[in-house]
């Protein structure tokens, strides 16, 4: 049987990939949204694993809330993406540089 450490390493890797993806990505805004989802999935894995090993349901209930909020978050993110594309005709991260200083 997998131990709690295996789950933590797995979720840690997923979280790392998500964060690095946001930091490194220079091409596409959609990839940013995918990275955010990845971070939330890492959190969900954590909660379910802890819940299982602590023999509680609290963590699992928490995951339901996170999933719901993540859906709302993705909806708003995609809506902003559409607005951005209509205005700029591009979703390239590098071209989002009008605001700086």
């Amino acid at each position, binding site marked *: 049987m997998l131990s709690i450490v295996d789950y933590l390493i797995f979720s840690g890797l997923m979280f790392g990939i998500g964060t690095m993806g946001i930091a490194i990505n220079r091409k596409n805004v959609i990839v940013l949204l995918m990275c955010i989802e990845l971070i939330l999935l890492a*959190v969900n894995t*954590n909660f379910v694993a*802890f819940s299982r090993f602590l023999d509680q349901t609290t963590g699992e209930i928490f995951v339901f809330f996170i999933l719901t909020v993540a859906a709302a978050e993705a909806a708003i993110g995609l809506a*902003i993406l559409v607005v951005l594309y209509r205005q700029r005709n591009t979703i390239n991260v590098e071209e989002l540089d009008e605001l700086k200083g």
Partner: protein
Amino acid sequence: MDFSLKAMLPEIFLATMTCVILVLDLYLSDRFRRVTYLLSQVTLVFAAVFAIALWDNHFVLMGGHFVSDKLAVVLKTSVFIVGFCIFTYVYDYLRERDIRISEYYILALFSMLGMSILISAGSLLTLYLGLELLSLPLYAMVAMIQRQNTASEAAMKYFVMGALASGMLLFGISLIYGSTGQIHLDALPVAINMAEQPDMLLLLGVVFVVIGIGFKFGAVPFHMWIPDVYQGSLSPIVLFVATAPKIAAFGMLSRFLWDMFGAAPETWQSFILIMAVLSLLLGNIAAIAQTNIKRLLGYSTIGHVGFIFLAIYAGNFAAGAFYVLAYALMTLAAFGILVVLSQRGIEIEDITDLAGLDKQHRWLAVMMLLVIFSLAGVPPSIGFYAKFVVLSALVDAHVAYLAVFGLVMSAIAAFYYLRVVKVMYFDEPTQTREITIPHGTNVLLSINTLATWVLGILPGGLMAICLLLY
């Protein structure tokens, strides 16, 4: 345990009324659009009254997920009052430009509902849900008005940064849950004390949560979104983003660091200190180079957040609460004046847009002067007293060198604030224009501005309230 929902009345009322307004607005013709505005204002007034009515009681509801104590009452009431002022200031701005007025109020009301829930959070779950309900309408709000080309870019940056921050916060929450098996704020200190020494998982969790809080406040190194959002969106939206969420963010910080980890300050103190010092440095120095007034105020916000974090580092949460309320009051007036000034097709964007304001509208120039001086910390304004309280808390905590550092930074801040005053009073206006302020807005804005000085001269009442909270 108390199952009466009386303590949730402000939230229940706000949620119901917001939904009613949302539906009602669909059936209103454009001529009666004012009804939406009036209903929103009435809602906020009643919500504030319901909140104040809970002052003397300490309620724990929903199996400990929802708490109503003095801290919640004070912060909620401030949020509602700030919201009331914001709505008054922006009404004419939105109407003149024929912008979708109702959406602004409805999104703001939903966001304030989130703030209210966040402030009353009794567990990490409510904390997270409140935070998301606070943030999601804000993202939509920044993207809502497409007058400026930059709005969607600002919204995208805000969204990605905010979502990353909630991700970090959640990851931290999951680690804390894993190491203690608890998500209730009041149960956690017990769980922590049972372990002889805090384990790595818990410490890592605290680090992530503090990072999440830093993001929401806009503390360096998690400040990137603040200048962009401030510059990229229209003044009424910045007015909202800059004031009320900061009060709620302080509620979150206080719930987490005081209620939950107050017994173990060594777990978070060093991170708070690093963020405070970096915010003071970068916020004040980067502001010098700015030409855009909103971006300048954005960087000055970062500097003020540095002061709030210094108070938290010194362990003086009452000073932090006083500072955040003072900050909200001053920023409300500053952006309120920018909103009122943006009329007849002119948007106040650059500092030079304020040139010769003294000759165009004397009273507005005086008000702007008072607010800028208060932000800079000129005695005897509220900005001065707030800084004074924080600095004396630092000296009491035997970290006088930090007090000196804070003092030097506010001296640097005075430079760029005074430049704005110089432009207003001594530069020639680029064009002649007439400025008219509606009567009600004028009165409220004047009260707001004068309050930043009256509360500075007589800070005793507000300070006594802040001291009651901890």
